[in-house]
């Protein structure tokens, strides 16, 4: 299995505080990896470094052989990294379809001149945008209205739209920041199934998640962080048995059993 993303000794500091301090992991093709850790462990900061929203103060990020360390987020997205955000970052005033079309921005297919003169090329391109947006909404089993502003949707539906938007990017790698937060049981089960279908498309997934049940069931490997450092990495079973992980989550000297069932 070839390596899609290589994160090597990643570091970022804010005014002397090291939010991420030496994070290293690889993501292979068609792999689902979870990054877990207590609140403030530096998971989202790591995501932001990988996707270019923060400039790492050290280390490197390599995407399919291209060094993307410290590049612009847009350039990193263009190389094939898509992401969702911890708190939904949708375009609230725009329609559901427009939100999904955002993921297709790099498809091109029309120029501004095409738009002004409504050339056949423009019409074809717009039809393709719309059709593809519907395709991705269907893919995530979105059942809400599609022509209305995002703000009219339920939270669960908004989460679905955010994932379809990222999917529309058609990237090799998808970073999901707490995709299950705020979802009910059924929705979580759907998410689980969705992630697998995404993987089957050929996309690797890295997710930050607090729901251990979901993490254990879904991910092939788990990276555990605490205080910016990587304290463990391995299969779900290995991680569950790792004393450092248990300590990080529950403090010293306590027996712990991480619940398998979500």
């Amino acid at each position, binding site marked *: 299995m070839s390596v899609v993303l290589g994160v090597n000794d990643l570091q970022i500091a*804010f*005014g002397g505080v090291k939010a991420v301090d030496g994070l290293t992991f690889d993501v292979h093709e068609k792999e689902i990896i979870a990054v877990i850790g207590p609140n403030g462990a530096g998971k989202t900061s790591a995501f*932001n470094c990988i996707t270019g*929203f*923060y400039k790492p103060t050290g280390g490197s990020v390599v995407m399919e052989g291209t060094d993307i360390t410290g590049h612009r987020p847009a350039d990193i997205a263009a190389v094939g990294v898509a992401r969702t*955000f911890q708190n939904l970052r949708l375009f609230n005033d725009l329609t559901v379809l427009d939100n999904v079309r955002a993921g297709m921005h790099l498809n091109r297919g029309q120029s501004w001149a095409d738009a002004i003169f409504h050339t056949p090329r423009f019409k074809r391109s717009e039809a393709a945008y719309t059709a593809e947006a519907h395709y991705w909404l269907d893919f995530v089993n979105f059942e809400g209205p599609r022509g209305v502003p995002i703000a009219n949707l339920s939270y669960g539906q908004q989460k679905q739209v955010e994932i379809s938007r990222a999917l529309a990017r058609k990237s090799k790698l998808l970073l999901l920041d707490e995709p299950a937060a705020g979802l009910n049981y059924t929705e979580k089960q759907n998410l689980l199934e969705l992630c697998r279908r995404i993987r089957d498309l050929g996309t690797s997934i890295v997710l930050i998640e607090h729901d251990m049940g979901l993490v254990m069931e879904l991910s092939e490997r788990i990276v555990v962080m605490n205080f910016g450092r990587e304290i463990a990495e391995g299969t779900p079973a290995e991680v569950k048995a790792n004393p450092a992980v248990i300590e990080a989550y529950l403090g010293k000297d306590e027996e712990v059993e991480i619940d398998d069932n979500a």
Partner: protein
Amino acid sequence: MTQIIWDGLFVGSFYALIALGYSMVYGIIKLLNFAHGDIYMLGAFIGFVMLTSMGGLPGALGIGALLVVLLVSMALTGGAGVLIERFAYRPLRKAPRLAVLITAVGVSFTLQYGVSAIMGSNPRSYPVRLEGDVFDVLGARISLPQVLLMAIAAILMISLNTYIQKTSTGRAMRSISLDMKGSLLMGINVNSVITRTFFIGSALAGAAGVMSGAYYGKIDFMMGFLIGLKAFTAAVIGGIGNIQGAMLGGLVLGLLEAFGASVFGGEWRDVFSFVVLILFLTLRPTGILGERVTERV
């Protein structure tokens, strides 16, 4: 040469007084209060109305009367600032930044043309004028009124600085500017602190307005526009949100302008200061004294 420095410092102290309000408000609620320059104009007109209505009295009382007028004008412009915050800005505290900025432009328009509607669009001349001896210091001609005005400006700025550093309100201001949500959680009455900030900032601008009227003699409803821009430039030079920075920035801009004007010619003076503003914003947006702030996603 000494004359250039002195002139620059004198104008700079006006910039500094106005820049303080800009900077304080920006520091606390990240609002670029476009109408701030017009508060300065409002102060000048309030002073004008008071002095005119007193008839011949102020002339006889001289500087004492002027000081009283200065204080009352400060109180009134401070109140105006509070009202503006309450009715125009507070309802928009959570609105998109664009909406707030546009509101500020609207407030500025309202103040300018409100004063123009009431007082007429013609320039007015101040009934009381500061006059006094001129003496020569190291080749610069320095007049008594200039010294007096700079002393008043200095006193105002020093007391403000003490207030911010030493009192609980001052600490609350600093804390809100660092973290508004956190301050709310810590039990700070954010609204009351913001109100005070607007009061103080506007009062200082009002003071500058009265001082300008009394020194230069001519006031008009557009007088706040350009100086507002300059004061903003000063605040940026010093590091916006930073109190000492605003004072420093005012003086620095005054000096830069004085030298710029003597090098490039008076007609390019404003272009010169706008270029300074743009250079600072693009090359060092945190100003001379500001700290680098990382914006979080």
